[in-house]
């Protein structure tokens, strides 16, 4: 795989639920090492797009390539290649509720690298928990004993367990208070730089878009209407995009974003 080749390439993706068409010819490229924000109205199929790329849902038509491998292939080795090299943070963390945080992080390690000795596996889990910004004591806690923000951090720790180069985040800041959301944005940025991640980030949060995203892709009218740096997206004259980026909330976020950049 060439270094400048896109890490995810989606071509002509079609997704239908019965009569309802969610995607009709979605084309998308995610470049290596960038944070790509995916925005779109409720029901525009952001999560469906992510689920298609991850192989959780088989699209009705189209091609998807992840890390140079055909994501729709039935081949075990291809699937495992993708599974081992992607981390996913679901909306509410999707932690296994009967396992502690540490055990949650160790699940993928045990599954894919069973030869790693127990003590090292524990150390690795502890490292990931702390990298995700949780205190070390959190490793022995159950998900039910954590707050919403901490659960997301624990979910992030599990997503990072295998050091995947590609990270999927589904609305990471939804339901967090503004301070917690800003801290989570910074955490993603820090980790992205430290671990050299490529991030596919679904969000509704304008602050996140301005603060950390390199490019923004907008899903509207069943396709990606624009995929570009945010300054360019702002100038796009698609009606939904205009309303989204020039509403009252967008202005505040833009000013705040400009503030942190400066």
């Amino acid at each position, binding site marked *: 795989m060439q270094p400048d080749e896109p890490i995810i390439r989606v071509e002509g993706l079609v997704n239908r639920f019965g009569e309802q068409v969610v995607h009709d010819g979605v084309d998308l490229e995610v470049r290596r090492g960038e944070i790509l924000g995916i925005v779109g109205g409720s029901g525009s199929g952001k999560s469906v797009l992510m689920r298609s790329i991850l192989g959780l849902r088989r699209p009705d038509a189209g091609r998807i390539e992840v890390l140079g491998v055909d994501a729709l292939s039935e081949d075990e080795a291809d699937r495992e290649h993708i599974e081992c090299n992607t981390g996913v943070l679901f909306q509410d963390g999707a932690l296994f509720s009967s396992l502690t945080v540490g055990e949650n992080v160790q699940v993928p390690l045990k599954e894919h690298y069973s030869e790693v000795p127990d003590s*090292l596996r524990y150390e690795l889990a*502890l490292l990931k928990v702390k990298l995700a910004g949780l*205190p070390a004591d959190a490793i022995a806690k159950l998900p*039910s004993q954590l707050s919403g923000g901490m659960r997301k951090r624990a979910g992030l720790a599990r997503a990072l367990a295998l050091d995947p180069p590609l990270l999927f985040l589904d609305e990471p800041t939804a339901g967090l208070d503004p301070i917690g959301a800003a801290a989570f944005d910074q955490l993603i940025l820090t980790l992205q730089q430290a*671990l*050299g991640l490529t991030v596919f980030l679904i969000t509704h949060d304008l602050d996140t878009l301005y603060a950390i995203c390199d490019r923004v892709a907008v899903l509207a009218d069943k396709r990606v209407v624009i995929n570009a740096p945010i300054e360019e997206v702002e100038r796009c004259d698609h009606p939904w995009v205009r309303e989204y980026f020039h509403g009252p909330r967008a202005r505040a976020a833009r000013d705040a974003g400009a503030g942190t950049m400066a």
Partner: protein
Amino acid sequence: MRDESRPPSLATDDTARLRLQGSWTLAHAGEMGEILRDAPEGVSEVDVRDVDRLDSAGVLQLLRFARRRCIDFDVFEFRQDHVALVSAIEDVADDRPKKKREYGVSAALARLGFAVHDNGKEILALIGFLGENMLKFARMVTQPRRFRLTATVYHMEQVGLDAVPLVFLLSYLVGAVIAFLGANILRDFGATIYVVELVNVAFLREFGVLLTAIILAGRTASAFTAQIGAMQSREEIDAIRTLGMDPIDLLVLPRVIALVVMLPLLTFIAMIAGLLGGLTVGAFNLEIPPEAYIGRMEATIEVRHFLVGLSKAPLFAMVIALIGCLEGLQVEGTAQSVGERTTSSVVQSISLVIIIDAIMALWFMQMDI
């Protein structure tokens, strides 16, 4: 997995300088550990610039190696693109969790104490819940608009009508088994015909109601707990409260009323099925023709046994419905909690049904009823 990367390796230029090569990644975790264990003593410099790949597992192994050999981590030289990763990991590496759980005798005693205390609280909660329900029921009688007819009928169908085949089948089989067992012993005395009385008394007095209650404890108490628990965990119960409605009126009373009405009816079906089981075994295995069996039944049956059995049904219904609903309301947050509470409601309701049945059997016997 597709991994064409070179395995990790180690080169020593002179005695004190290590040069790392290859991939120092999670996929080679075991090899990394071995290489570092076999590394020569007295290392003063470590050059990590020539590695192909380095991930957090690799950095962690190097950190552990440094800690074990008491080498200052500053002597490790990293490539520019690895510096961010290394410093991020170094920043968080020192903080360690405290050991939590203890395993001594005193800890075991403490857990026992907590368990007893919890059980005491459960009993209190159940009694309190009974009182609350009686109060709300009285209020419902004075204000009939609070009665939820649709919900009650729906639950009657769920707990009553839908359980008929199961209750019938199981009671029929147990009736047949009792007839078999009884006949085997009574045959020695030439008193096979007494099987009729055995099955009659057993089913009218005890087994009809007990079997039904146990089946419903497994089937209905668990369903009540799961239904209400799922609502509780998604804050629906809180929503009901904030909308000015009473979850007892809305969720608990319809279920309690439905079960109190349906359990006696199911008990009646169970009694009939059990008697039929006895009749079948009598006809096919004990050479008691059905006419003779029914004639003997008519001659010896007593209505007091039937009343004793049926009198217990509403009580068992209350116990099952109240425990099922109470456990559902006590669910906290997670899916796991719903599962735990469901198990607990089945265990509690079956145990309590059997305990109450035993006490009542003694009482009825002493009272000569």
